[in-house]
Protein backbone atom coordinates (compact mmCIF):
# COMPACT_ATOMS: atom_id res chain seq x y z
CA UNK A 1 0.00 0.00 0.00
CA UNK A 2 2.85 2.36 0.66
CA UNK A 3 5.43 3.08 -1.92
CA UNK A 4 8.11 1.22 -0.04
CA UNK A 5 10.01 -1.41 -1.98
CA UNK A 6 9.03 -5.02 -1.43
CA UNK A 7 10.82 -6.44 1.55
CA UNK A 8 10.95 -9.93 2.91
CA UNK A 9 7.96 -11.00 4.95
CA UNK A 10 9.10 -10.83 8.53
CA UNK A 11 7.26 -13.52 10.43
CA UNK A 12 5.95 -15.98 7.90
CA UNK A 13 8.22 -18.78 9.01
CA UNK A 14 6.73 -21.57 6.98
CA UNK A 15 7.06 -20.27 3.43
CA UNK A 16 10.56 -21.59 3.03
CA UNK A 17 9.36 -25.11 3.68
CA UNK A 18 6.28 -24.68 1.52
CA UNK A 19 8.49 -23.48 -1.27
CA UNK A 20 7.60 -24.08 -4.86
CA UNK A 21 4.45 -26.10 -4.20
CA UNK A 22 2.88 -23.32 -2.15
CA UNK A 23 3.71 -20.79 -4.85
CA UNK A 24 2.03 -22.97 -7.46
CA UNK A 25 -0.99 -23.47 -5.24
CA UNK A 26 -1.35 -19.69 -4.75
CA UNK A 27 -1.14 -19.17 -8.51
CA UNK A 28 -3.78 -21.84 -9.09
CA UNK A 29 -6.11 -20.20 -6.57
CA UNK A 30 -5.58 -16.82 -8.23
CA UNK A 31 -6.25 -18.32 -11.66
CA UNK A 32 -9.44 -19.99 -10.43
CA UNK A 33 -10.67 -16.72 -8.97
CA UNK A 34 -9.95 -14.86 -12.22
CA UNK A 35 -11.86 -17.49 -14.21
CA UNK A 36 -14.84 -17.11 -11.86
CA UNK A 37 -14.71 -13.31 -12.24
CA UNK A 38 -14.54 -13.63 -16.02
CA UNK A 39 -17.58 -15.89 -16.10
CA UNK A 40 -19.54 -13.65 -13.75
CA UNK A 41 -18.72 -10.67 -15.94
CA UNK A 42 -20.08 -12.44 -19.00
CA UNK A 43 -23.15 -13.45 -17.03
CA UNK A 44 -23.18 -17.16 -17.75
CA UNK A 45 -20.91 -20.17 -17.52
CA UNK A 46 -20.13 -22.12 -20.68
CA UNK A 47 -17.09 -23.67 -22.32
CA UNK A 48 -16.20 -20.60 -24.33
CA UNK A 49 -16.19 -18.45 -21.20
CA UNK A 50 -14.21 -21.04 -19.23
CA UNK A 51 -11.52 -21.25 -21.92
CA UNK A 52 -11.53 -17.49 -22.41
CA UNK A 53 -11.25 -17.00 -18.66
CA UNK A 54 -8.30 -19.38 -18.47
CA UNK A 55 -6.52 -17.52 -21.27
CA UNK A 56 -7.20 -14.04 -19.88
CA UNK A 57 -6.47 -15.09 -16.30
CA UNK A 58 -3.20 -16.75 -17.35
CA UNK A 59 -2.21 -13.62 -19.26
CA UNK A 60 -3.00 -11.43 -16.25
CA UNK A 61 -0.91 -13.63 -13.96
CA UNK A 62 2.01 -13.69 -16.41
CA UNK A 63 2.04 -10.01 -17.29
CA UNK A 64 1.04 -8.52 -13.93
CA UNK A 65 2.74 -10.73 -11.35
CA UNK A 66 2.11 -9.88 -7.71
CA UNK A 67 4.50 -10.34 -4.81
CA UNK A 68 3.96 -13.61 -3.01
CA UNK A 69 1.69 -13.43 0.02
CA UNK A 70 2.36 -15.79 2.87
CA UNK A 71 -0.84 -17.54 3.76
CA UNK A 72 0.33 -19.87 6.49
CA UNK A 73 -2.83 -20.97 8.19
CA UNK A 74 -6.15 -22.11 6.88
CA UNK A 75 -9.55 -20.53 6.70
CA UNK A 76 -11.58 -21.17 9.85
CA UNK A 77 -15.30 -20.99 9.00
CA UNK A 78 -16.54 -20.20 12.50
CA UNK A 79 -14.03 -17.40 13.00
CA UNK A 80 -14.93 -16.09 9.55
CA UNK A 81 -18.57 -15.97 10.60
CA UNK A 82 -17.68 -14.12 13.80
CA UNK A 83 -15.55 -11.67 11.85
CA UNK A 84 -18.24 -11.09 9.21
CA UNK A 85 -21.05 -10.53 11.68
CA UNK A 86 -19.02 -8.18 13.88
CA UNK A 87 -17.87 -6.36 10.75
CA UNK A 88 -21.45 -5.95 9.53
CA UNK A 89 -22.60 -4.72 12.93
CA UNK A 90 -19.78 -2.18 13.15
CA UNK A 91 -20.39 -1.10 9.56
CA UNK A 92 -24.06 -0.38 10.22
CA UNK A 93 -23.63 1.37 13.58
CA UNK A 94 -20.69 3.47 12.41
CA UNK A 95 -22.41 4.40 9.14
CA UNK A 96 -25.44 5.62 11.07
CA UNK A 97 -23.17 7.54 13.43
CA UNK A 98 -21.36 9.36 10.60
CA UNK A 99 -24.65 10.01 8.83
CA UNK A 100 -26.05 11.49 12.03
CA UNK A 101 -23.16 13.87 12.68
CA UNK A 102 -23.25 14.83 9.01
CA UNK A 103 -26.79 16.15 9.22
CA UNK A 104 -26.65 17.43 12.81
CA UNK A 105 -26.93 21.24 12.60
CA UNK A 106 -24.01 23.29 13.79
CA UNK A 107 -21.79 20.37 14.73
CA UNK A 108 -18.07 20.45 13.97
CA UNK A 109 -16.55 17.04 14.59
CA UNK A 110 -13.01 16.89 15.90
CA UNK A 111 -10.57 14.24 14.83
CA UNK A 112 -7.25 12.71 15.73
CA UNK A 113 -4.47 10.86 14.00
CA UNK A 114 -3.31 7.82 15.94
CA UNK A 115 -0.70 5.17 15.31
CA UNK A 116 -1.66 1.56 15.86
CA UNK A 117 1.11 -0.99 15.80
CA UNK A 118 -0.26 -4.37 14.83
CA UNK A 119 0.99 -7.37 16.73
CA UNK A 120 1.60 -9.50 13.66
CA UNK A 121 3.19 -7.60 10.81
CA UNK A 122 2.79 -9.98 7.89
CA UNK A 123 1.68 -8.46 4.60
CA UNK A 124 -1.57 -10.39 4.54
CA UNK A 125 -2.57 -9.38 8.04
CA UNK A 126 -1.56 -5.76 7.43
CA UNK A 127 -3.55 -5.55 4.19
CA UNK A 128 -6.66 -7.28 5.50
CA UNK A 129 -6.71 -5.30 8.72
CA UNK A 130 -6.21 -2.04 6.86
CA UNK A 131 -9.05 -2.94 4.50
CA UNK A 132 -11.45 -3.94 7.23
CA UNK A 133 -10.60 -0.97 9.44
CA UNK A 134 -10.93 1.58 6.70
CA UNK A 135 -14.22 0.15 5.44
CA UNK A 136 -15.76 0.89 8.81
CA UNK A 137 -16.76 4.55 8.96
CA UNK A 138 -15.04 6.86 11.39
CA UNK A 139 -11.56 5.55 10.74
CA UNK A 140 -9.46 6.40 7.70
CA UNK A 141 -6.05 4.95 6.95
CA UNK A 142 -3.60 7.73 6.19
CA UNK A 143 -0.31 5.90 6.09
CA UNK A 144 0.95 2.35 6.41
CA UNK A 145 4.39 1.57 7.73
CA UNK A 146 5.03 -1.83 6.27
CA UNK A 147 8.29 -2.58 8.04
CA UNK A 148 7.00 -2.11 11.57
CA UNK A 149 3.42 -3.08 10.77
CA UNK A 150 1.99 0.23 11.91
CA UNK A 151 -1.24 1.77 10.69
CA UNK A 152 -1.79 5.52 10.97
CA UNK A 153 -5.48 6.22 11.30
CA UNK A 154 -7.53 9.36 11.23
CA UNK A 155 -10.39 8.95 13.69
CA UNK A 156 -13.42 11.18 13.29
CA UNK A 157 -15.56 12.59 16.10
CA UNK A 158 -13.33 12.28 19.13
CA UNK A 159 -14.28 13.98 22.35
CA UNK A 160 -11.70 12.86 24.90
CA UNK A 161 -8.35 11.06 24.99
CA UNK A 162 -10.18 7.88 25.96
CA UNK A 163 -11.78 7.87 22.52
CA UNK A 164 -8.33 7.38 21.04
CA UNK A 165 -7.74 4.32 23.21
CA UNK A 166 -11.13 2.98 22.21
CA UNK A 167 -10.24 3.36 18.53
CA UNK A 168 -6.88 1.67 19.13
CA UNK A 169 -8.50 -1.26 20.89
CA UNK A 170 -11.11 -1.58 18.19
CA UNK A 171 -8.42 -1.78 15.53
CA UNK A 172 -6.52 -4.42 17.47
CA UNK A 173 -9.77 -6.34 17.93
CA UNK A 174 -10.28 -6.33 14.16
CA UNK A 175 -6.75 -7.64 13.77
CA UNK A 176 -7.44 -10.38 16.28
CA UNK A 177 -10.59 -11.50 14.52
CA UNK A 178 -8.78 -11.54 11.17
CA UNK A 179 -5.92 -13.58 12.59
CA UNK A 180 -8.40 -16.00 14.16
CA UNK A 181 -9.85 -16.42 10.66
CA UNK A 182 -6.77 -16.77 8.45
CA UNK A 183 -3.77 -16.66 10.76
CA UNK A 184 -1.37 -19.52 11.29
CA UNK A 185 -0.99 -21.08 14.71
CA UNK A 186 2.32 -19.28 15.22
CA UNK A 187 0.66 -15.94 14.57
CA UNK A 188 -2.15 -16.80 16.96
CA UNK A 189 0.37 -17.61 19.66
CA UNK A 190 2.05 -14.25 19.02
CA UNK A 191 -1.35 -12.68 19.52
CA UNK A 192 -2.02 -14.41 22.80
CA UNK A 193 1.25 -13.58 24.45
CA UNK A 194 1.15 -9.93 23.45
CA UNK A 195 -2.32 -8.95 24.59
CA UNK A 196 -5.03 -10.19 26.89
CA UNK A 197 -8.65 -10.39 25.83
CA UNK A 198 -10.48 -7.11 26.12
CA UNK A 199 -13.97 -5.80 25.58
CA UNK A 200 -14.20 -3.86 22.34
CA UNK A 201 -17.50 -2.06 22.56
CA UNK A 202 -17.08 1.66 22.11
Amino acid at each position, binding site marked *: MTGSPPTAVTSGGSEASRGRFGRWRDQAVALGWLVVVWNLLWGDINWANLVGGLLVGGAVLVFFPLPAVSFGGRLRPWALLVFASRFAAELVS*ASLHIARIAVQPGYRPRGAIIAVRLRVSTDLNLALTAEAVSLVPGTLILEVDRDSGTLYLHVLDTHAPTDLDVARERTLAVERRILRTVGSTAELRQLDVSAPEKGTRP
Partner: protein
Amino acid sequence: MIATIADWLGAGCLVAGALLGLAAAIGVLRFPDALSRMHAATKPQVLGVLLLLLGIALRLRSPADLGMIALVAVFQLATAPVAAQMIGRAAYRSGRLDRSLLDADELAERGSGGGSAG
Protein backbone atom coordinates in the same frame (compact mmCIF):
# COMPACT_ATOMS: atom_id res chain seq x y z
CA MET B 1 -46.25 -13.98 -1.97
CA ILE B 2 -42.51 -14.39 -1.55
CA ALA B 3 -41.99 -12.25 -4.63
CA THR B 4 -44.05 -9.47 -3.07
CA ILE B 5 -42.07 -9.62 0.17
CA ALA B 6 -38.80 -9.54 -1.77
CA ASP B 7 -40.03 -6.59 -3.78
CA TRP B 8 -40.91 -4.63 -0.68
CA LEU B 9 -37.67 -5.54 1.08
CA GLY B 10 -35.80 -4.50 -2.03
CA ALA B 11 -37.64 -1.19 -2.12
CA GLY B 12 -36.80 -0.60 1.53
CA CYS B 13 -33.12 -1.34 0.90
CA LEU B 14 -33.08 1.05 -2.06
CA VAL B 15 -34.57 3.87 0.00
CA ALA B 16 -32.20 3.23 2.93
CA GLY B 17 -29.18 3.14 0.61
CA ALA B 18 -30.27 6.34 -1.10
CA LEU B 19 -30.70 8.05 2.28
CA LEU B 20 -27.18 7.03 3.31
CA GLY B 21 -25.90 8.40 0.02
CA LEU B 22 -27.71 11.67 0.76
CA ALA B 23 -26.19 11.83 4.24
CA ALA B 24 -22.76 11.26 2.70
CA ALA B 25 -23.30 14.11 0.25
CA ILE B 26 -24.36 16.43 3.08
CA GLY B 27 -21.30 15.37 5.04
CA VAL B 28 -18.98 16.16 2.15
CA LEU B 29 -20.53 19.58 1.98
CA ARG B 30 -20.54 20.33 5.70
CA PHE B 31 -17.49 18.72 7.30
CA PRO B 32 -14.73 21.21 8.01
CA ASP B 33 -11.56 19.80 6.43
CA ALA B 34 -10.42 17.38 3.77
CA LEU B 35 -9.83 14.47 6.14
CA SER B 36 -13.27 14.57 7.72
CA ARG B 37 -14.78 14.96 4.29
CA MET B 38 -13.07 11.76 3.22
CA HIS B 39 -14.94 9.97 6.01
CA ALA B 40 -18.24 11.18 4.63
CA ALA B 41 -17.25 10.57 1.03
CA THR B 42 -16.10 6.99 1.45
CA LYS B 43 -17.87 5.44 4.38
CA PRO B 44 -21.66 5.83 4.39
CA GLN B 45 -21.23 5.17 0.73
CA VAL B 46 -19.94 1.64 1.45
CA LEU B 47 -23.05 0.61 3.35
CA GLY B 48 -25.20 2.74 1.04
CA VAL B 49 -23.93 1.00 -2.08
CA LEU B 50 -24.27 -2.41 -0.43
CA LEU B 51 -27.88 -1.64 0.48
CA LEU B 52 -28.60 -0.41 -3.04
CA LEU B 53 -27.08 -3.58 -4.50
CA LEU B 54 -29.07 -5.72 -2.08
CA GLY B 55 -32.22 -3.89 -3.08
CA ILE B 56 -31.49 -4.41 -6.77
CA ALA B 57 -30.69 -8.07 -6.15
CA LEU B 58 -33.99 -8.57 -4.31
CA ARG B 59 -35.89 -7.08 -7.22
CA LEU B 60 -34.04 -8.65 -10.16
CA ARG B 61 -33.54 -12.18 -8.76
CA SER B 62 -31.95 -13.73 -11.88
CA PRO B 63 -28.68 -15.67 -11.48
CA ALA B 64 -26.74 -13.68 -14.08
CA ASP B 65 -27.68 -10.40 -12.42
CA LEU B 66 -26.88 -11.76 -8.96
CA GLY B 67 -23.38 -12.73 -10.11
CA MET B 68 -22.76 -9.29 -11.51
CA ILE B 69 -24.10 -7.63 -8.35
CA ALA B 70 -21.86 -9.80 -6.17
CA LEU B 71 -18.88 -8.74 -8.31
CA VAL B 72 -19.78 -5.07 -7.95
CA ALA B 73 -20.02 -5.51 -4.17
CA VAL B 74 -16.67 -7.31 -3.95
CA PHE B 75 -14.87 -4.72 -6.02
CA GLN B 76 -16.54 -1.91 -4.16
CA LEU B 77 -15.33 -3.32 -0.84
CA ALA B 78 -11.87 -3.99 -2.22
CA THR B 79 -11.26 -0.63 -3.86
CA ALA B 80 -13.00 1.94 -1.64
CA PRO B 81 -10.34 1.79 1.13
CA VAL B 82 -7.52 2.10 -1.41
CA ALA B 83 -9.02 5.22 -2.92
CA ALA B 84 -9.72 6.66 0.53
CA GLN B 85 -6.17 5.99 1.68
CA MET B 86 -4.60 7.53 -1.41
CA ILE B 87 -6.67 10.70 -1.12
CA GLY B 88 -6.24 10.89 2.66
CA ARG B 89 -2.50 10.47 2.35
CA ALA B 90 -2.28 13.10 -0.35
CA ALA B 91 -4.38 15.47 1.76
CA TYR B 92 -2.15 14.91 4.78
CA ARG B 93 1.10 15.31 2.90
CA SER B 94 0.00 18.47 1.16
CA GLY B 95 -1.12 19.93 4.49
CA ARG B 96 -4.78 20.24 3.60
CA LEU B 97 -5.98 19.61 7.10
CA ASP B 98 -7.13 21.84 9.91
CA ARG B 99 -4.78 21.26 12.82
CA SER B 100 -7.05 23.06 15.25
CA LEU B 101 -9.50 20.19 14.77
CA LEU B 102 -6.97 17.49 15.62
CA ASP B 103 -6.71 16.13 19.15
CA ALA B 104 -3.54 14.20 18.41
CA ASP B 105 -1.19 13.62 15.51
CA GLU B 106 0.99 10.60 16.00
CA LEU B 107 1.95 10.54 12.35
CA ALA B 108 3.82 13.82 12.77
CA GLU B 109 5.81 12.26 15.62
CA ARG B 110 6.93 9.40 13.46
CA GLY B 111 10.01 11.07 12.08
CA SER B 112 11.53 11.97 15.45
CA GLY B 113 10.12 9.68 18.12
CA GLY B 114 9.18 6.61 16.17
CA GLY B 115 6.45 4.12 16.95
CA SER B 116 4.58 5.45 19.93
CA ALA B 117 1.76 2.99 19.45
CA GLY B 118 0.69 0.80 22.27
